[in-house]
């Protein structure tokens, strides 16, 4: 008779504290073999200097390409890196869920625009505006954090989420407010049309006008912010934040000023976002309410989570990866390479032994070809849909995947079915999973060719949501984060 499983088997931590420490130490010592000298050499370099090669590589970008588009993508990436670094202070260092982060970014951008546009006919020099905006954003963060200071992190989440929404509502409607003691409405933010013609950054007479200029400006700021945050992380405050993140109660018992630390993290995050906002507003030469919407928040969260909360380099890598990925997904042909590439890489990584991999791939290929040959004879309208894109991969895919005439409708139904089947695959174990995998692969390709590739903007959003859920389930510490010590 088989014994029933212990009821708490899943809830028990897999290893204890001492064991974790021992394993961690072992891993460090264990580095032997051919690459060991290289690892040791890297470890001897002081951590702040390790980013130098990446910075040098980034600085070369404008020399490698003359296309303004590529440089603007580079600039966007750097903006994302900055935003992710700021969010990392709040989420990664201190472990607070700040869902109004974009509002601070927006506040910085709008504040810069108010001081340097025709809105109020103020054209302040940048060296004056930027520090003021940063301090103002930090104070706004402090104000917002105050009502939540007595409460758990959850309340902070709801207050900040609502604040983000309220910010967008406010700036989209603050173009006809009548202040007390004033006759007639005043246009504060330009309403839904935003504030156009924002001045460029003007540093002591040096006006930054080109995409290339802004790229270098963002690069310099990113490096400075990264170094500053590195030293902050290693400081007394940084260590206190980590203690707070791991166990607020224990931190409080060690006489750490928990509330003040929370507010401080909040303010640092807000100030970074505000600074980024000023660069963004100047580059875009305008600010619009739609720039600061929820999808941006989710994107930045995905970046921080993917890279590994708490790790500065990890977060920067996460930001670069996701932004480049989203940029590639814009065109059907490149997106197709990414999609099939990821599926193949995933199968190579997780499917063992190799014969199983071969069987699944062969099964999917045969299944697809059989369907491609048979179904048009049985169902009318199973072919004749429009094919998206060109190139050899596209031709190969379309020789395999059916393109029904009403692809949108069929694709929608199949999308729902695909989500259900993928979830079912997660539950299944053993041979059944392998058998089901082949049709699911075909279905995924079918949905991709018929539906997702035609809606790149929506596909991006779906992928972001899925990345967050999957990463949280599979690897909550992200790619470069360190695993959390389980406390028993």
């Amino acid at each position: 008779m088989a014994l029933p499983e212990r009821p708490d088997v899943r809830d028990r931590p897999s290893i204890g504290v001492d064991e974790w420490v021992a394993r961690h130490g072992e891993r460090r010592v264990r580095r032997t073999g051919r690459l060991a000298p290289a690892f040791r050499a890297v470890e001897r370099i002081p951590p702040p200097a390790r980013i130098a090669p990446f910075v040098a590589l980034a600085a070369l970008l404008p020399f490698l390409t003359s296309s303004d588009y590529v440089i603007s993508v580079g600039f966007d990436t750097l903006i994302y890196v900055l935003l992710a670094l700021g969010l990392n202070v709040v989420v990664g260092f201190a472990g607070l869920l700040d869902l109004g982060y974009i509002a601070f970014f927006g506040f910085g951008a709008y504040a810069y625009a108010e001081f340097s546009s025709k809105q109020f006919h103020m054209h302040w020099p940048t060296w004056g505006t930027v520090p003021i905006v940063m301090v103002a954003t930090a104070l706004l963060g402090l104000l917002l954090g105050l009502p939540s200071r007595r409460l758990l992190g959850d309340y902070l989440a709801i207050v900040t989420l609502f604040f983000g929404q309220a910010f967008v509502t406010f700036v989209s409607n603050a173009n006809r407010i009548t202040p007390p003691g004033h006759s007639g409405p005043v246009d504060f933010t330009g309403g839904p049309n935003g504030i156009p013609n924002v001045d460029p950054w003007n540093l002591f007479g040096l006006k930054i006008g080109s995409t290339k200029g802004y790229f270098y400006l963002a690069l310099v700021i990113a490096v400075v912010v990264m170094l500053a945050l590195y030293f902050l992380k290693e400081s007394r405050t940084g260590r206190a934040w980590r203690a707070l993140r791991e166990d607020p109660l224990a931190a409080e018992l060690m006489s750490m000023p928990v509330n003040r630390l929370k507010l401080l993290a909040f303010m640092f995050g807000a100030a970074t976002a505000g600074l980024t906002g000023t660069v963004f507003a100047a580059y875009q030469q305008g600010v619009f309410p739609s720039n600061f919407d929820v999808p941006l928040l989710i994107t930045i969260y995905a970046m921080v989570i993917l890279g590994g909360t708490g790790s500065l380099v990890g977060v920067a890598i996460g930001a670069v990866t996701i932004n480049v990925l989203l940029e590639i997904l814009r065109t059907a042909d490149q997106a197709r390479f990414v999609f099939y590439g990821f599926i193949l890489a995933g199968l190579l990584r997780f499917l063992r032994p190799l014969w199983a991999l071969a069987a699944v791939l062969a099964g999917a290929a045969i299944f697809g070809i059989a369907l491609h040959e048979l179904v048009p004879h049985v169902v009318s309208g199973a072919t004749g849909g429009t094919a998206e894109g060109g190139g050899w991969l596209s031709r190969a895919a379309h020789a395999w995947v059916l393109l029904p005439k009403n692809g949108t409708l069929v694709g929608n139904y199949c999308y729902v079915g695909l989500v259900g089947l993928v979830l079912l695959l997660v539950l299944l174990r053993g041979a059944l999973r392998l058998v089901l995998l082949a049709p699911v692969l075909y279905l995924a390709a079918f949905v991709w060719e018929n539906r997702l590739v035609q809606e790149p903007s929506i596909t991006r959003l779906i992928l972001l949501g899925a990345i967050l859920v999957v990463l949280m389930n599979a690897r909550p510490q992200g790619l470069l984060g360190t695993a959390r010590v389980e406390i028993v």
Partner: protein
Amino acid sequence: MNWSLFFNLLANGLVLGSIYALIALGYSMVYGILKLLNFAHGDVFMIGAFIGFFVLQGLGGAGNLSVPNWVAISLMFLAAMAGCGALGMVIERFAYRPLRNAPRIAPLISALGVSFFLESTALLLFSARFRNYDPNFRLVSFDSGVTIGPVFVSSLRILTVALTLALMVVLTALVSWTRTGKAMRATSFDREAAAMMGIDVDRVIVWTFVIGSALAGAAGVMFGLVYGQVYHLMGFNAGLKAFTAAVVGGIGNIPGAMLGGMLIGLAEAFATGYLPQGSTFVDLYVFSLLIVVMLVRPSGLLGTRAIQKV
């Protein structure tokens, strides 16, 4: 004072409050048991509204139904509640259960991901346009109703509020008198102790999600019937308000969620009517209300201050 306006706003507030209260219940119940803010709940509400819409279309549309009106309405509610209940179960199984023992922030981010996934899936499947539910109020006539004092209350509004009250009574009975309800209360009080007493905590959590999501589904159909239009982003705003309602009432507290929902609904209606530029800045007014409540009574109106045990 213009009493007709006042009573009209009161009726509006009660209808809106009913919808918020139903959504808030789901937030509050899940929070009570898992200490998890289920951000995806607002989007479950949106899916419920779409299920109702497609059932209505499947029966021929509001103008030329193949069944009597009351059958159509019942079918819409039942389908939305069943569909959303199943959806809640799936979300719990795949997005939250594996994270039961993870750091606190992990399930929150997972919830954020589910919410975004549902929203963009709805955008892919249903596109971004607004769907007209029941354009000319043919299912429940807007012209019929009763006159109470100076105002006329349409039967659609009466139906919404009455149905909400009925669902709340059923829920209260369920939680107070059934075995599952008792297990829920025990789990909410202390999950570990409940597990030690032989309560299948996983089953209780699944039931909580099913019930909460079904209520959100019902709220979705109500929203469609009363306001006439459904779209893929409707869950975000309604979810946010319901969330506020749950916090104002005392999160984790079932009567608190009902009270909070009604309060937020009424506050929104009266803000629209009486405050300067109310209809534009209604979100800001509700937000200020949230901040005030958090400053004055951080644990909500009916919440008790939790004592943290180590």
